[in-house]
């Protein structure tokens, strides 16, 4: 196990208000500083997760998202800026995150998750945040995280609803236990308010902080669903599937 890095006086000052969180403290902060988190797509959900993780002081973020900022990204993609329209999303994101917290190392990749890059990206991280708008990317990321035994936080939304679960390979159900087939009806364009995507992104970031710092109880084996139309939140147990093609043999 890597030795935890010390915190500089500037970091101790920056994180002062979270160092008093019960069961977190300086050791939790040093664990965050020591960690690398991969975020797959930095749109409304993943971008907010990255923002929260940068604020919290994760040591290194790897951000993967292809394409340039478009006008209709700006209702929800909080790392993008109006003057960044037409420029790569990852550049806009890196600029925003560095402005927020220069202590965080940011690595960007102007690509989405694919068979060509997923193994190497997962190998270099400690935790994955999965927030792509397509199931083939999510299922691919899930497969690789399970194979490499890396925890994965799957965060998804639609309209005013959100869903979150944490995959601990071999211990809790993986995404393929829930979705054994690529869902045929899902469309890439979905209705979204930033307040909803940001909510699920923030919840995902909290899961990551908990996993890294050993704080609280992660959502492994449980699915959190919420519907902001009536502000209802529920948490239901979910089970591993023994015949799961991805994690059934673990």
């Amino acid at each position: 196990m890597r030795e935890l890095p010390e915190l500089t006086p500037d970091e101790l000052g920056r994180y002062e208000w979270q160092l008093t969180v019960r069961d977190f403290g300086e050791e939790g902060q040093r664990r965050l500083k020591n960690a690398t988190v991969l975020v797959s797509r930095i749109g409304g959900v993943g971008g907010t997760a990255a923002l929260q993780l940068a604020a919290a002081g994760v040591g290194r973020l790897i951000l993967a998202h292809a394409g340039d900022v478009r006008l209709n990204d700006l209702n929800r993609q909080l790392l993008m800026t109006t003057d960044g329209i037409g420029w790569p999303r990852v550049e806009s994101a890196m600029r925003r995150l560095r402005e927020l917290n220069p202590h965080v190392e940011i690595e960007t990749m102007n690509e989405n998750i694919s068979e060509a890059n997923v193994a190497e990206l997962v190998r270099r991280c400690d935790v994955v945040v999965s927030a792509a708008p397509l199931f083939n990317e999510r299922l691919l990321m899930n497969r690789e995280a399970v194979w490499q035994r890396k925890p994965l936080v799957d965060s998804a939304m639609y309209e005013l609803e959100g869903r979150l679960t944490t995959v601990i390979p071999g211990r809790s159900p993986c995404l393929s236990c829930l979705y054994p087939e690529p869902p045929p009806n899902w469309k890439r364009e979905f209705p979204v308010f930033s307040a909803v995507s940001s909510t699920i992104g923030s919840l995902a970031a909290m899961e990551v902080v908990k996993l890294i710092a050993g704080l609280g109880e992660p959502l492994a084996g449980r699915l959190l669903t919420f519907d902001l139309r009536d502000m209802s939140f529920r948490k239901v147990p979910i089970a591993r599937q023994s015949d799961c093609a991805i994690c059934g043999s673990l």
Partner: protein
Amino acid sequence: MKLRVQYMAQLRTVIGQAEEFIELSDGSRLSDVLIQLAARHSVARSHLLTDTGQPRPSLLIIINEAAVSARDAATTELRSNDVVTLLPPIAGG
């Protein structure tokens, strides 16, 4: 027996309502509910059933406060006043 069915996400959009109550004969299984709903709401059929009429494996189902796999729908017996929540897969990111 009477059941309360709640629709989430795209199912709510295509069916156009958040919930409804349905009547089924005693001893009905979860698969019977999905078949009846697919017949009643043809626009939602592909969310509920596969092309061969089997429960859609990627449909998440909660009965009261317990998740039930669609693969177990044919053996999951329901009781009067159960609340069945149907959650189609979502991946908004």
